């Protein structure tokens, strides 16, 4: 199969993720959409790695996975903390500070 198709798939996933971040209101779901965007980047990296015939992209994909894992640790800690003090993980409720 033409590796370009994987690029289209990745772009689609990235777009879905980006729209999800903008539309969804639950912090956990927003965060999952961000993870989807990171994975779209991974797919792009691996597809380009295949097209160029070098391993840089695949190695980067590993790094991105590790970073995503670290981000989950930090992000869930912060979101759980927010939920415990407000009993809501909605990003709309977190609006004490406004212009």
């Amino acid at each position, binding site marked *: 199969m033409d590796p370009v198709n994987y690029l289209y798939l990745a772009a689609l996933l990235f777009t879905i993720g980006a729209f999800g971040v903008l539309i969804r209101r639950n912090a956990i779901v927003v965060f999952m959409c961000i993870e989807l965007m990171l994975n779209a*980047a991974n797919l792009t990296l691996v597809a380009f790695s295949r097209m160029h*015939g070098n391993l840089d*992209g695949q*190695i980067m994909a590993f790094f991105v996975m590790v970073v995503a894992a670290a981000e989950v640790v930090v992000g869930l800690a912060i979101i759980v903390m927010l939920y415990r003090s407000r009993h809501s993980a909605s990003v709309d409720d977190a609006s004490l500070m406004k212009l």
Partner: protein
Amino acid sequence: MSALNASPDGAVHNLWTHAAEAPSIEYLQLSPALIVLGAAVVAILVEAFAPRSARYYLQVGLSGLALACGFATTVGLAVGGYATDKAAVVGIGSLSVDGPALFLQGVILVVALVSVGTFAERRLEPVAHGARVDSFAAQPASVPGGEGEQAAIKAGWTTTEIFPLLLFAVGGMMLFPAANDLLTLFIALEVFSLPLYLLCALARRRRLLSQESAVKYFLLGAFSSAFLIFGIALVYGYAGSVQYPVIADVVDGTVQSPSPALAASMSNDVLLLVGMAMILMGLLFKVGAVPFHMWTPDVYQGAPTPVTGFMAAATKVAAFGALLRLLYVVLPGLSWDWRPVMWGVAILSMVVGAVVAITQTDVKRLLAYSSIAHAGFILAGVVAMNDRGISSVLFYLLAYSFVTVGAFAVVTLVRDAGGEATHLSKWAGLGRRSPLVAAVFAIFLLAFAGIPLTSGFVGKFAVFAAAAEGGAAPLVVVGVLSSAIAAFFYVKIIVLMFFSEPAPDGPTVAIPSVLTTGAIAIGVVVTLVLGIMPQYFLDLASTAGVFVR
């Protein structure tokens, strides 16, 4: 083994057939960052094994020592010529140790050293159950106002994890402006961002605001870094490599005998343009330039003030360093495409930052909008695309970071029963009540405004001169106009402090220990020295302002 060797084209990856040679790592040139990151790991072990009572002193000592050693090594490297003659790309092409990198690493280290002082300050909060406490939560995991929090306060706990987090953030910030490939750029960004997200959530007072700021910073920061990594993926697809020099060659079209795949992707400019736009988006988010600035006021307001000071100063230094290297080393061949965009971003940042700041009533939010305007001023130097552009930005970052750390340190001193009194109405008449603190804050405000004899004036003059020389005269006009707008609200605060009656229920000014006093004093000294005798530092910045390629 033989089956593996017999690949169709005979070109097996040479790791299979030869003993791989260990790459040589230039430990000397990498030592500043290695010291800081090593100390961060040791600090985690301290957190795990040292008794609770000893942790504070161990952590403060260790962080201070590591940052001082890191700074001494950086200065040693610069004196040893690694900033100029011996500037080189090290770490198998992943980092460059050159003038801008060492200069900015030095600035970040001193700012961090000063910030350790403000982080460790324990004289401002009232004594809780016989224990002196700092401005960080007793136990961040406890629910604000709940029983767990009361128990933690009663037990006199403090969050000493702030020091390893600070060290990791500093380590990442040191690598960020030195990154010489896109992978290192991304990793360094995450290494300094993740600790900052956590630090934002740790305030002792107003914990709901603090937690809210952490959530906003985290979600938006992760969103922007997703754009950054997708942009990196697209640029990798365009150039077939993530190394800056290789990408620069491909952008310039000077590649010798490209492979068929590279020849095909090189002809697709969409990959490059979209990818670079996404990478720039990620970096501009970190510097807080309009239209990627929405997080700045909320995060600056909600985060614990020592963290805000550190973050406002050091993040900006690191992110502008990375932005400079990307634009000057990788993308000069594309400058016709990115310069108009950066012009727009610079103009928007200057105008929006200055105009919106006028309406603010909270001193931390006001300083946040001021930092957005300053991001615009620095961008004016960045788009100059000449040698003076680099050196003026370096100088501006040096000047701006110390003013910022000092100003936020002053904000920690003005307090009432609810903690810091950040509402501007509370600051009325502060000059009558404690003239020294008000005078120091006035010096910082004048430096932000760019009044002569302060570092802000020399910095602004340098970036505007560079921009004018680089053919960006309209930017200079907008910059001067928005400086005038900004001067209005800086002076308004000074008038408020000195020429209005103090409110009867006004705030008190806490007497800090030597840690915060030292931070403020360093800020004042640097501001005045850079304002009155800037020549040495201007020369230093212009010597340092050459990128290794």
